[in-house]
C-alpha cells in the first residue's frame, strides 16, 4: 500500500525523467543545423554550473552584519565543441526546450488536479478561466501597452490577468463560505465567454500588432529565452510541490465532498488551496507560452490509463509525461519547413489521439 505506491511512483517517475532527458537531447540536436547527440551532451555539460564550494559572506543589514551562505559554481567541463554549436545549443535551442518542458510539466500537473477536483474528464487547466484571463492581459499589453498598469511586461501582464480571473471566478462562485464545484464550473464558462468577447474586441482594434496577438493566442514557444525560464520554472516547481503534498487529499475528494469531510478533510480549505495552486501553475505556464491546448487534457488521461487514479503516482508521472510530450511536439513544430505555433501541433496530434483513447479504452469518467 504505502510502500508499494512509493516504489511504483519512484520507478515510473525515474523512467519518465529518463525519457524526458532523452527527448530533450534528441530535440536539441534537431533543427536547421543538425547536431550529434554526443555533441549536444558535451555542449550542455560545458554550460552546466557545478557547485564547487560553499562559503559565507557578510551582509550588512543597517547596523547589523549577518552571515549569509554563498554557493560557488563553476563550469567544470571543457569539452571541445564548435563555438557555433555551443551557441545554438545553449543560447537558442536549450532555453526553448527547457521552457517547453516547464510549460508541459505545469499544464499536465494542473490538468490532473482540475480533472480530479471537478471529477470531470473534460476539465483542463483553463477550466476556471485562467487562460482567458492571461490572454486578456497579454493582448492588452500587445495592443495598448500604456493601459497596462505598473509598467508590467508581457509575461507579467498575462500572469496577473490569469490570477485575477481565477480569483474573480472563485469569488463569484462562493456563497456563505462554500464553493460548489458545479457553480464554479458554470461561473468559469461564463467568465471565459465574456473574456472571449473582450479579446475579440481588442483584436479588432489591434492594428499593426494583430499578427503578434494571433501568434500569442495560438500558443508559441519560438521567442523563448532563459529569462522566461527563470520567471516560470521556480513558480511551477514550488506550486507543484504544494499540489503534491495534497495528492492524498485529492484522492479522498474523489469520493465526494461529504464523504471527504467525514474522513477528516477540511473540504473548503483544501479546495481553495488546490484551486489557487493549480491556477498559479497554469498562469505561470500560459504567461510565457500563450494558450497551448490539449496537453493538460490529454496527458493526465493517458497517464491515468497507465498508472491508475491514485494522485500520489498520477500527479508526478503526468507532469513528467507532459514535459516530454510538449518538448516532442514543439520539436515537430519548429523542425518542419516552416515553423508553426506549437498549439496547432498539440491540438492536431492530441485530438485524434484523444478520440482514439475514447473509442478503444475507457476514458469515460475520471479513471
Amino acid at each position, binding site marked *: *500500500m*504505502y*510502500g508499494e505506491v*512509493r516504489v511504483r511512483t519512484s520507478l515510473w517517475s525515474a523512467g519518465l525523467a529518463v525519457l524526458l532527458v532523452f527527448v530533450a537531447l534528441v530535440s536539441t540536436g534537431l533543427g536547421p543545423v543538425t547536431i550529434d547527440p554526443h555533441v549536444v551532451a558535451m555542449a550542455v555539460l560545458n554550460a552546466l554550473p557545478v557547485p564547487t564550494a560553499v562559503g559565507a559572506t557578510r551582509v550588512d543589514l543597517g547596523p547589523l552584519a549577518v552571515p549569509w551562505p554563498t554557493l560557488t559554481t563553476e563550469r567544470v567541463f571543457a569539452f571541445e565543441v564548435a563555438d557555433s554549436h555551443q551557441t545554438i545549443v545553449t543560447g537558442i535551442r536549450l532555453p526553448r526546450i527547457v521552457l517547453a518542458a516547464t510549460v508541459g510539466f505545469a499544464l499536465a500537473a494542473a490538468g490532473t488536479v482540475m480533472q480530479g477536483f471537478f471529477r470531470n474528464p473534460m476539465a483542463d487547466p483553463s477550466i476556471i478561466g485562467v487562460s482567458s484571463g492571461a490572454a486578456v492581459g497579454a493582448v492588452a499589453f500587445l495592443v495598448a501597452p500604456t493601459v497596462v498598469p505598473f509598467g508590467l511586461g508581457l509575461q507579467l501582464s498575462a500572469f496577473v490577468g490569469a490570477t485575477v480571473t481565477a480569483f474573480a471566478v472563485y469569488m463569484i462562485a462562493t456563497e456563505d463560505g462554500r464553493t460548489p464545484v458545479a457553480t464554479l464550473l458554470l461561473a468559469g464558462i461564463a467568465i471565459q465567454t465574456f473574456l472571449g468577447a473582450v479579446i475579440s474586441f481588442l483584436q479588432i482594434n489591434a492594428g499593426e500588432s494583430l499578427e503578434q496577438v494571433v501568434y500569442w493566442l495560438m500558443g508559441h514557444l519560438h521567442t523563448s529565452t532563459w529569462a522566461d525560464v527563470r520567471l516560470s520554472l521556480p513558480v511551477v516547481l514550488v506550486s507543484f510541490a504544494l499540489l503534491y*503534498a495534497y495528492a*492524498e*487529499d485529492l*484522492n*479522498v475528494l*474523489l*469520493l*465526494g465532498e*461529504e*464523504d471527504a*469531510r*467525514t*474522513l*477528516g*478533510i*477540511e*473540504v473548503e480549505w483544501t479546495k481553495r488551496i488546490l484551486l489557487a495552486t493549480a491556477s498559479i501553475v497554469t498562469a505561470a505556464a500560459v504567461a510565457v507560452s500563450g494558450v497551448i491546448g490539449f496537453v493538460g487534457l490529454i496527458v493526465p488521461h493517458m497517464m491515468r490509463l497507465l498508472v*491508475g*487514479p*491514485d494522485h*500520489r503516482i498520477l500527479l508526478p508521472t503526468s507532469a513528467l509525461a507532459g514535459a516530454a510530450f510538449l518538448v516532442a511536439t514543439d520539436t515537430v513544430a519548429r523542425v518542419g519547413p516552416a515553423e508553426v505555433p506549437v498549439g496547432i501541433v498539440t491540438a492536431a496530434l492530441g485530438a485524434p489521439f484523444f478520440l482514439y483513447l475514447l473509442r478503444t479504452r475507457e476514458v469515460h*469518467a*475520471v*479513471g
Partner: protein
Amino acid sequence: MSDWTAPTEDEKRVFNGDGDSNATIEVREVDVRLGGVAVLSGVSTSVESGSFVGLVGPNGAGKSTLLRTIAGVLSPSAGSVLIDGVDVHALSSREASKLVAVVPQDTSLSFAFDVRDVVAMGRTPYRGRVRTGDPVGRERVGWALSRTETDHLAERSIADVSGGERQRVVLARALAQDAPVLLLDEPTSSLDINHQLRTLELVSELVGEGKTVVAAIHDLNLAAHYCEEIVVLSGGTVLESGPPEHVLTEGVLEQAFDTRAVVTRHPVTGSTYVTALPDRPEPTRGHVHVIGGGGVASRLLYLLSGAGYEVTVGALNEGDSDLETARSLGLDAVAIEPFSAVDGGARRAVSRLIDRADVTVLADVEVGSGNLVNLDCARESRSLVVIEDRPFGERNYAGVEGRELYDSLRERARVAGEDELLSAVASALGSEREL
C-alpha cells in the same frame, strides 16, 4: 477552525483517539434547514455509549439529515449535537472524523482505486501532510478488511466488485477510521437478504465491542431485531423513541408511515414483528360476512380483505385468534365474552351483518352448542358459501341439531375448499346480483 484555548478534558480524550472511548451522543433541540426548508425541527434524542439505535421513518422524514448532522456535515440552525460531551460542530473535520465514522447511503466510487486503497482512505484523519510509513494504519486497514470479510477483494478494483461487496468495503473504510461512533445510512438497502443479515450481525458484534451505532434502517423488522432502541422520525420530528416493543406499535406506525400495519411477535425469534398491510381499497366489491372461530377463518379474512371486499366477522369469543386477525386487519367483528355462548345481543348483531352482507361465508369451523347460533343466523343469508376442508362429522360437537342445520345450509350453498374461496365468493356475488 481549531480553538485557541487550551483543550478541555473531553477534547484531550478525542485527540488521544482511544478508539472505543465512552461515546454518548446527545442531540439537543436540533433544527436543520436545507435550502430554506425546515427538515428537522426540535429533534432531541440521546444514545448511550455502546448501544445500537435504529432510526426509522418514512422517506423524507429526515433520517439522513439527522445522521449528517450528527456527523457534523450539516450544521444545525439551532440546537447542538454533543458526542462524549463535545460539540461536534465546533470541531474541525479532522477531529470530528476521529469521533464519528459514516457509511453513506450511496457510495459512488466509479473510479479504479483498489479496494485496499479505498479502505486506507479511512486513515485520512491520522495522516500527516508529509507522507511517512504508517504501520498502525496498515494494521488497522488489514483488520477492517478481515472484519468485513473483504480481504479477498483487497487487490481488486473497487469498480469491479458487486454492490453488496462495495457496501462492505465502505463499512471497512469506516472501521479503519477507528472512531467510537459509527453512523450507517441504510446500510442494507442494496443488499440481498443474506448480506443484510451478515452486515447487521457484524454491526451488532461491533456494538458488543463498544462501538456506538446509529443506523437508518428501512426494514422495520431488521431494526426491531437488531436495535436496542428505535427512534421513529416523521416529518422532521421524533415521534417516539425507546425499545422496539414499546415504539413499534400500530398506532405509531400508522401515524409515521400513514399505512396500516400489524405488529406481532415473530414466532421464531421473538422479536417485534411488523407486517404492513396494503391500503384498504374502497369496498366496492361487496360485503362479505364470515362465520369462523378457532383460527380457521384467519386466512379467509386476509384473502377477502386483500381482495377488496368489505369484510365482517362474528360472532367470535374474545381471545379467539380469528378475532385478533380481524382486529389487526381493521375489520368489524361481533365479539362475545371468552368461553361463553352467543347470546341474544350478539345474535341480533350477527343477524344484522348477515342481512346486510351480499355473501356470507361459513368457514371450516368446529360447531358446538355455543356457536350454533351463528349457523342459525346464516339461514337468513342472501347467498352462502360453505368452506369444507374437513368432513362436518369430524367437527360437529352439536349432535343431530348441528348436523341438520349444517345440511340445510349446505344444500343451498356453494361448497368450496379454502383454496377456491375467492372464486366461490365471486360467483356467489355474481348470481346474487343477477337475482
